[in-house]
């Protein structure tokens, strides 16, 4: 979409529209000064016909300008939204984490809408303002140099008034937004925390908190409204003084015989238009703070470069062959979040041998999830390398890498569509049989079939109608439906009850047959099922071995096991 023609078009059309508009008072003055003075009724109505043509020209140009403005504003929004969306899609977890998902959503939706509105308003109102200003000034000047001097004298006064009012109002408008956010936050907290609030009998405390936010918002609103309402009367007074001065001086000019009443009437109208154009511009200042904030938030995203790139063609290596079980190797990998004092992962060095099942186990905050994120290249290691079948994963394109790995995340997101669509998400070509098989393996088949529409049941993003465990099982089915040489389950069984958990794990061996499997888990039972267990402790590998080996060798593992199995049973 080309914007320059639209902007130029809108500008030219607005100029035409203003020109037509300004010609009408001019013709009116002729009606008075020639028609009425000469008592020429025919002339009056002829001139009226000409005015009608100008009025028609005005409406046609105005409508066309509106078309340009609508297309330009919405087209701009569309393109910006698209650029933003593509940028966010290219983000790694690091950038997403920096902005926050909900903030990115707001930026892509509300903020861009705000900008659309601003541009539309700029092109319909703000663009007209300077044209009208210059046009009305020229027309007034042409009518009478002396009288237009009065008008020109009023302009700086007007500008100063607008500037002063804005100076006192704009910061308040900004803080008003913050106060609204405060009230929103307090109210939201009161709603989400209702059980805790009642349990601790803190209703009064919450009421006071709310009351305070409510009061401050109300007071800010009052100040804003009062300051804003100064503007109109002040501008009015300036305008009125101009009108009175023109009438007085116009009277003097007429008295000298050098001026006519019709011209006087026209010049009063031009004065009003001129000053109104100043007012119009001030309207832009009102919506400017919000638009500016929105623009800042949007550009911050656009200027944020994704930290993870696909390799350039020089660096690029041949991707491992799909289908066979992969070997995954961490070579002295370290990872630290930016600005963190302590690295999250340190000296991580291990190899997952093809076809074997591994359990990754460790305390909360030991770095398990980040380790998985490194395999998927959601982050890049700070030091060391991750190798898939001997190939550094940073040297193959991300989509190729990820097509080789099947992954079930910790937190499940389902996408709008049917359950079958969701299971097919990673493998669009999966046959119905494959989908059913994956669902069976994930112990999801029964509950899906209990739904009236079975696999065709519509799910929403929030997964409405499905429990946490059911969503997780669909996510597992989704991972299983995608055939890969490496399966990664990041704590994907946490919402399952123990029976289902055991059932899924039993099926897993069959469903992933031949592939390499890495399961991140809290539960010891997972570790006991695995060929090998990797124990992570505070970002370092504590030990690697079979369950039996580790029981004897690893203090950390021992503690984990002990915490899950009662002492008397363990001893």
């Amino acid at each position, binding site marked *: 979409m080309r914007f320059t023609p639209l902007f130029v078009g809108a500008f030219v059309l607005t100029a035409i529209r203003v020109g037509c508009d300004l010609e009408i008072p001019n013709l009116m003055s002729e009606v008075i000064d020639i028609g009425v003075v000469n008592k020429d009724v025919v002339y009056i109505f002829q001139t009226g016909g000409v005015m009608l043509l100008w009025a028609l020209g005005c409406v046609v140009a105005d409508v066309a300008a*509106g078309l340009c403005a609508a297309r330009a504003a919405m087209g701009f929004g569309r393109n910006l939204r698209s650029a933003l969306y593509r940028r966010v899609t290219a983000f790694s977890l690091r950038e997403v984490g920096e902005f926050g998902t909900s903030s990115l959503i707001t930026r892509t939706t509300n903020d861009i809408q705000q900008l659309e509105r601003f541009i539309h308003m700029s092109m319909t109102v703000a663009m007209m303002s300077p044209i009208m200003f210059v046009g009305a000034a020229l027309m007034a000047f042409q009518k009478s140099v002396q009288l237009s001097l009065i008008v020109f004298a009023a302009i700086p006064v007007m500008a100063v008034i607008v500037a002063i009012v804005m100076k006192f109002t704009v910061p308040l408008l900004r803080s008003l937004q913050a106060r609204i956010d405060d009230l929103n936050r307090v109210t939201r907290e009161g709603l989400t925390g209702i059980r805790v609030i009642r349990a601790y009998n803190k209703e009064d405390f919450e009421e006071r908190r709310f009351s305070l936010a409510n009061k401050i918002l109300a007071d800010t609103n009052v100040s804003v409204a009062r300051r804003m309402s100064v503007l109109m009367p002040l501008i009015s007074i300036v305008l009125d003084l101009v009108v*009175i001065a023109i009438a007085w001086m116009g009277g003097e000019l007429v008295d000298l015989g050098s001026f006519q009443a019709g011209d006087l009437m026209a010049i009063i109208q031009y004065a009003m238009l001129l000053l109104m154009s100043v007012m119009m511009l001030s309207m832009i200042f009102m919506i400017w703070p919000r638009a500016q904030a929105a623009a800042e938030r949007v550009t911050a995203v656009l200027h944020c470069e994704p930290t993870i790139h696909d390799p350039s063609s020089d660096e690029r290596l041949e991707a491992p062959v799909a289908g066979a079980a992969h070997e995954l190797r961490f070579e002295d990998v370290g990872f630290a979040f930016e600005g963190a004092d302590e690295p999250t992962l340190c000296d991580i060095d291990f190899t997952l041998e093809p076809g074997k099942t591994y359990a990754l186990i460790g305390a909360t*905050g030991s770095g398990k999830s980040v380790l998985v994120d490194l395999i998927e290249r959601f982050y890049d290691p700070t030091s060391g390398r991750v190798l898939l079948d001997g190939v550094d994963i940073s040297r193959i394109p991300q989509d190729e890498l990820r097509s080789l790995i099947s992954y079930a995340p910790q937190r499940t997101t389902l996408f709008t569509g049917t359950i079958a669509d969701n299971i097919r998400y990673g493998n669009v070509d999966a046959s119905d049989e494959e989908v059913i098989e994956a669902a069976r393996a994930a112990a999801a088949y029964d509950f899906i079939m209990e739904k009236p529409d079975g696999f065709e049941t519509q799910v929403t993003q929030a997964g409405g109608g499905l429990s946490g465990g059911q969503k997780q099982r669909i996510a597992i089915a989704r991972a299983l439906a995608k055939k890969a040489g490496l399966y990664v389950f990041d704590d994907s069984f946490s919402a399952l009850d123990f029976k289902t958990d055991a059932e899924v794990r039993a099926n897993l061996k069959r469903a992933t047959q031949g592939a390499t499997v890495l399961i991140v888990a809290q539960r010891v039972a997972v570790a006991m099922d695995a060929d090998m267990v990797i124990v992570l402790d505070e970002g370092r590998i504590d030990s690697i071995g079979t369950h039996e080996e580790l029981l004897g060798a690893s203090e950390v593992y021992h503690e984990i096991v002990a915490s899950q199995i009662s002492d008397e049973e363990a001893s």
Partner: protein
Amino acid sequence: MSPQHPNPMQAGRKRGGPHGPHGPHGGAPVEKAKNAKGTVRRLLVFVKPELPKIALVLVCAIIATLFDILCPRQLGMATTEIFRAGVAIANGEVGAGVNFELLREILFVLLVLYLCYSVFTYLQAFVMARVAQNVVYSLRQQTEEKLNRIPLSYYDSHAKGDILSRVVNDIDLISTTLQDGMTQALTSVITIVGVFVMMMFMSPLITIIALCTLPVSIILTAIVAKRSQRFFLAQQTALGVLDAHIEETYGGHTEVKAFAHEKGAIEDFERINDEYFGHAWRAQFVSGLIRPLMIFVGNLAYIAIVCFGGWQAVVGALTVGEVQAFTQYMRNFTRPISQMAGIINTFQATIAGAERVFEILDQPEMSDETALPPDTTKGAGHIRFEHVRFGYDPAKPVIHDLSVEALPGQMVAIVGPTGAGKTTLVNLLMRFYEIDGGAIYLDGRDIRTIKRDELRSHMGMVLQDTWLFNGTIRDNIAYGVDHASDEDIERAARAAHVDHFIHTLPDGYDTVINEEASNLSAGQRQLITIARALLADPEILILDEATSSIDTRTERLVQRAMTELASTCTSFVIAHRLSTIRDADVILVLRDGDIVEMGAHEQLLLQDGFYAELYNSQVSDCIDEVDY
């Protein structure tokens, strides 16, 4: 639904100039009120305390409008005098010239009129700002107080976002309407009547000719509004799809990436984005048509007045100044009329919004307990459920006939599959919900005879969904205890094994938890809420999946702290991880709202029933292997 707000910059008085009235805004679809009359009446109750001020506002508005109506005529008199002099001079009459004495008088009166108008307009807005905000403040305050009196079932059955939107957005809409809409409506009516009288007074003929444009503008407005409504609806729908797509792909960022779906997602997005664009620019354009069309109709009226007025001036039935005044009057007349549709829309949206707020205010409240005798003595913490029956929908009982006893100091664990009614028991014990049959006794007293706040002061609760507010960690831990000392807070934090972590934060205990609490992990949040419960030192402790986000090792440490606390208090523990509740004195195994098994861990294992099955699915294959 998103009612279109009226332009907050209330269009000011515009005099002269071939500028048409700015038409009603857009014409986005507006939700209709169900019972407009009743709602307005109820709103008036809130407005009542402000009546003296409102009377002042009305008086100011009326005076300002009257002055505004007189202005064009006064200016016209000046023009007429100047025109008369001009013509006289042109005709070379003897002694012709402007009567400056008269002109000065006319312009002085005009100055006074103008100044009065401005002063009263400002006064009106100044007072109204406070009135509107006072009404809104008290309406919000009442809603908040009401929210504290309605039972939890309301919260559980209504989306939080919906309630939030009622408290914030709907009430905001009321404030905007009060601030601008009310006076706008009033001045509009006065202007229309006053201007009509003035015009008729000057020339009935021109008035009728000029008014012929009125039906044209009304019809045009109606046509455009109707069409734009359709476009807006399409735009709104497309926007919904667009927003949903963005939310879901951003929310599922890792999935989109992991399944290499970026291309597909972008393709979908572009399609939806284009579709939205198609609807959006049309809606914007069509609704924007009203403005130029109204300007055109305004110009038509202007031309008609100038031509017919000129003709009348030639005939001598009208002065030139009156023609000028007429052009201004016509503008003042059509502006409020063409704004009417917008005003009506705003009022409708406001009333619908007020209705949504009143819906909250109309919710049945929890039973009044002021009559119950106060009693704050600390009891032993003896709990007895006796034949308790309950259903969220009374027709579908969740708990059928449940009887159980927890002796002081006992730890009672509740286990069972999802939906078995575990959390329901907590809801009943805390009196978040009232039982349908049977009774629950605390230290021998029916809990229905104890005030809710007193009952709850005996209990401490930690939930799976941790709740922290936007305040310091210290304030969050001290939430349940007024004036807790720093030592007590830190002791509680140490017991919850979160003290060390807090010290690693930049501001320690004074670190402010941000809005999404994203500076804390789920586990850390849970530890803080546990510290909060420990500090409150209750007689009865309820832990509903309280340690689910904590790894098993840390959980053990926390449990040790809780066991200490639990030795002095009765505790109810709901847990998925059966390993955490083996030490419980009594384990209740719930299934479909009934206790299917009850007893200590060993006992239940021996029974080899449902519990044993659940338990063994976790640990069976390792018991033999674990060898120390």
